[in-house]
């Protein structure tokens, strides 16, 4: 089943990715807090962009968003676009549902390391969990869930 994100590029989940059925009857999908500290990050993903904070002084990238640069303590920063390219750093494959909105098991949660040196927890929906490999190259795409564009990473793209 192909799911079209706002970016217009369809994402076809692999079987076993847990994404084949995004909706569980009567169970709201847990989402990032819309007005919380993550709102700017997801504001960019809503526009089809993966952006991270980048220090205006030492130029290092960081994630999660922070008010200062943890490397040089500068308060100067901007949201800069990531290349969207990265590789699989590690993962886990959940076989037992631990949340009522995530009942399609097994599904893998994957830590992806981006070229900029930051990491994200995400999905690689076009790869079966048993086929994941450390170092597998992936590229970002976006999967819209109840109006929120979640970054996901595809092995077959880019």
């Amino acid at each position: 089943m192909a799911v079209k994100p706002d970016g217009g590029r369809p994402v076809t989940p692999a079987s076993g990715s847990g994404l084949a059925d995004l909706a569980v009857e009567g169970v709201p999908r847990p989402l990032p807090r819309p007005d919380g500290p993550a709102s700017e990050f997801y504001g960019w993903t809503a526009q089809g962009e993966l952006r991270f904070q980048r220090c205006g002084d030492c130029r290092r990238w960081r994630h999660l968003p922070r008010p200062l640069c943890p490397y040089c303590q500068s308060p100067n920063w901007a949201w800069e676009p990531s290349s969207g390219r990265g590789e699989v750093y590690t993962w886990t494959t959940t076989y037992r549902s631990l949340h009522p909105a995530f009942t399609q098991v097994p599904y893998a949660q994957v830590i992806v390391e981006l070229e900029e040196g930051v990491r994200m927890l995400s999905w690689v929906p076009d790869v079966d969990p048993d086929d994941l490999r450390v170092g597998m190259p992936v590229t970002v795409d976006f999967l819209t869930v109840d109006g929120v564009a979640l970054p996901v990473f595809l092995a077959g793209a880019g």
Partner: protein
Amino acid sequence: MRDLTAIAGIGESDYCRKPGSGMSVLELLLVATRRAVADAGISATEIDGIITPPAWATAEAFAAALGLHLRYVAQPTGGGASSVGALQYAASAICTGLASCVLVPVGWNGYSGFRVRNFEDAPNMPAAGHVVDYYVPYGSVAPPQWYSMIATRYDHDYGLPAEALGTVAVNTRAFAQLNDRALMRGRPLTMEEYLASPWISRPYRLLDCCLETDAAAAVIVMSTERARQLGHPVVSVSGIAEGHPLPADDLVNRPDLLHVGLSDAAPRAYEMAGLGPEDADFAQIYDCFTFEVIHQLEDAGFCGRGEAPGFVLDGHTGPGGRLPVNTHGGLLSQAHAMGLNHVVEAVRQLRHEAGASQVDGAEIGVVTGWGDFGDGSLTVLRRL
């Protein structure tokens, strides 16, 4: 602070699962507290300091229930690492004269009340907001899912045979058979049964995961001088330290996922004690998951990075081994009192009152702490 303070009183609730403790968390904590007071042989009103548990009970509630005039109150934020980390607060308060008798109570209704899979409801967790915004939307909701990602990477970098994790589970369960306070006593475990247990979040199986229990423990810390006046062999706090990974509130963006709070706390605690891991007669290691025993054996200096699976497979950490680990059955097979039960067991071992699992001639013990997402602590305890 080396050997200037001692753990002079220990107490535990009656650990249980079904049908639940039947009491509030505060009441459960007070059961353990009253037993610790009785064990110390003091009047409760001697307590003038409290290091509060991570959540669910306040110093005010303790003071009102026990009739205490408190002059020192502190609340650690290291989650499960606070059980050991609290000893740092207690010892420094006593050494500086800010308090003379400090209560450390820790517990929860972890079976009948709060369950860690509902982590976004976790009280007082600095990481809870990040979990909601960046992990839970991807169905990453609970500790077995987070720490198993470290294990996957470890397996890639060093190799992690399932039998190594299984040996941790089997050995811990073996110790539980020797402990009449262990919930899994009477339920021995074989490697075959371990390997057949179902995946929770791979590579974690059901039998890699700690128990969910209603459990509370309490210890009482005082000066070594005061402890000598009481009835038990004196068990001193020889070394103690806390540590925090950076960032502490996000597991994903650490350059080395294996570098956690314990990595930094361990050398500081050993230095304070003037001892090393080679001096330990046993280790009580915060065993939220079997892999975390592997990880912490290395971080606490018992073996080098990548060597713990072999160390465990060689039989060193089971009953009769040269470094018995979790002689009470741990969080995996005794009960989950957030690791304060590990401190209680260490004191029993050093008093030579541990019964069937007694490590002969135990003089020095190590206890580690672990909190989400990797806050750590280590104490070196010594029989004086």
